[in-house]
């Protein structure tokens, strides 16, 4: 493809995938630079996995074009497969085999040179913290171990791009942190990491993120970028007692777009933050909510995402209205 220059690991143009009449991925376009950690963020069923499968060459696109490591995702899938590492949603290890047998199997499949085999195996065992469990059946391992072993098996052949499909779902917080440290380590060596997640906090770890919703890529950018560029409204943090009761009152105020519970307080989205903040203060004092505080904050990614999704929904219902 002409667009693919050397610094682009992934280039996608107007990618579409339909399953029957359902459009799982709807004209998605984006680029990922080499060495970047690119996060795909979105709710379940948004089309993240479908996109990743097309990039890995295991699912045919219905329309559109794309390249991975300079190879066409329609015609050169086998070349792609020998250059990437893919970790599918369910850590697809052979549960009846031991840790070592799983590694041996994939090192045979990836044809790791005999003189490097041992070294790579020890590296995976050390990386996953499984050196003492090399002879354990994979089925008895905890989620975090399975996850790291699956990652190890997928990168035995030291690919330049790795695709991780929800690698941290069902894994405890400590293991999640450890996993992200591994991803940073890989990225530090120049490996491009393409990761999907529905955890907002993980998205903050990425160099750039793409927000997917109902098959569409609704925004891409760095986390900072998204927080400032895409958030037209302002976010107020409201802390008070009985905040659940306050929620109902604040919602009725004019100029308030949305109120949501966030931690032990509320996040209020409004177009004009200053005015609404004053109104809220007055309201809470009148209704007798004690020790209230209201302040303008930098929106979190979750705020941005919710705001973008609502804008998208408004747009779609407006379109539907016009069509009718």
């Amino acid at each position: 493809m002409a667009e693919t220059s050397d610094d682009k690991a992934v280039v996608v143009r107007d990618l579409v995938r339909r399953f029957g009449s359902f459009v799982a991925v709807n004209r998605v376009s984006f680029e990922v630079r080499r060495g970047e950690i690119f996060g795909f963020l979105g709710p379940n069923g948004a089309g993240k996995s479908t996109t990743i499968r097309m990039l890995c060459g295991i699912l045919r696109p219905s329309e559109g074009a794309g390249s991975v490591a300079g190879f066409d995702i329609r015609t050169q899938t086998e070349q792609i497969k020998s250059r990437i590492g893919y970790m599918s949603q369910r850590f697809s290890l052979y549960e009846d085999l031991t840790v070592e047998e799983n590694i041996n199997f994939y090192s045979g499949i990836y044809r790791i040179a005999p003189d490097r085999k041992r070294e790579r195996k020890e590296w995976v065992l050390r990386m996953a913290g499984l050196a003492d469990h090399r002879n354990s059946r994979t089925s008895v391992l905890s989620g975090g171990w399975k996850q790291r072993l699956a990652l190890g098996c997928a990168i035995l052949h030291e690919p330049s791009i790795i695709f991780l499909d929800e690698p941290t779902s069902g894994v405890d917080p400590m293991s999640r942190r450890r996993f992200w440290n591994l991803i940073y380590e890989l990225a530090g060596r120049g490996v491009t990491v393409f990761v999907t997640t529905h955890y907002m906090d993980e998205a903050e770890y990425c160099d750039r993120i793409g927000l997917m919703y109902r098959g569409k890529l609704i925004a891409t950018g760095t986390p900072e970028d998204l927080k400032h560029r895409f958030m037209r409204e302002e976010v107020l943090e409201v802390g008070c007692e009985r905040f659940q009761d306050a929620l109902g009152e604040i919602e009725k105020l004019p100029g308030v777009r949305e109120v949501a519970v966030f931690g032990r307080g509320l996040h209020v989205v409004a177009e004009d933050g200053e005015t609404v903040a004053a109104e809220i203060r007055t309201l809470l004092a009148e209704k007798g909510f004690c020790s209230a505080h209201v302040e303008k904050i930098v929106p979190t990614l979750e705020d941005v995402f919710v705001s973008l999704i609502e804008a998208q929904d408004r747009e779609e219902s407006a379109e539907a209205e016009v069509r009718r």
Partner: protein
Amino acid sequence: MSSSSIRRTCALARKEFLHILRDARSLGMAIAIPMLMLLLFGYALTLDVDNVPMVVWDQSDTQLSRDFISRFHGSRYFSVRGYARTYREVEREIDSGFALVALVVPRDFASRVEAGRPAQVQMIVDGSDSNTATIAMGYADVVSLTFSQDVAIRWMQSVGGPSFAPPLEVRPRVWFNADMESRNYIVPGLTAVIMMVISALLTSLTVAREWERGTMEQLISTPVKGYELVLGKLAPYFAVGMFDMLLAVLMGKFLFHVPLRGDAVLLFAIAAVFLAGILSMGMLVSILMKSQLLASQIAMVLTFLPSFLLSGFVYPISNMAKPVQWISYAVPARYFVALMRAIYLKGTGLELLAGEIALLVVFGAIMLALANARFKKKLT
């Protein structure tokens, strides 16, 4: 096949072999079921009609009638289980299944025979099992005929005639299965049928299992090639299948005492060709179905009925209706059953069996090519 391809195939074969070893169910299916089937059918399925249970109502009760009855009792074909005094008793014995045939010798039997007049005896047969009934009647005819002949000779000698010999006498000589043991005929065919059913069942699970468990998604994202996967997965099941074959041949020899006249090497070589074809067929089903339950059921239907009914294992193909005979040409077990019997019973060599062997090779090649072509490294 390049050396690197061989490495991948070996990695797959080793992994698949570990699956078999670790999974008690599939190991049991691979080894216990064939042995169980061979034991069950080997002992239960016999086409010989021996020791037909018989009840006798001897109204004559003379030296001669007792002599006549002893001809039945003395043969291996009948065994006199009891004596009746009335038709009601005869009826009860046959109804209850205690006896399959009843022999009624009339009151005037001895007097008529001694007077040189024709005598009649009555034979009542339970016709509900028509096959056994026909055979039993045939035996009874022969026993009576020999008895009449003996009576005639004795009578002619007593009137001082010259020593008499019957004008024609058939001296049968049986080739190939000299003892006329149906077991010698059944065990080789049975081995063929078991091999077909078990081996297709084994491979029908292997690809579908990986789709169901999600490991296939991981596998197709690697640079592994379709033929490496098919061959790698076939190899361990081929080893298991050949082990089953060895077990079956050993059981045939030491348990059922079926003599192997032909070349054992040829026998195993043909079994290997047959096995490769059937394993590939099971693999093809697994690739197409992507579901273990569906694939195993289809494999059963594809192998069990055709190999039992259309292979000539129990029912001779030449007795079948023409259209059914044509269908049987598409059943590979037909050739394998014929080859097994030819080698076991007749000791036939390669030169006479080449045609059937060629057909097995063609079948195997088609199945392997189809399995390879239908395996796609894509999700749908």
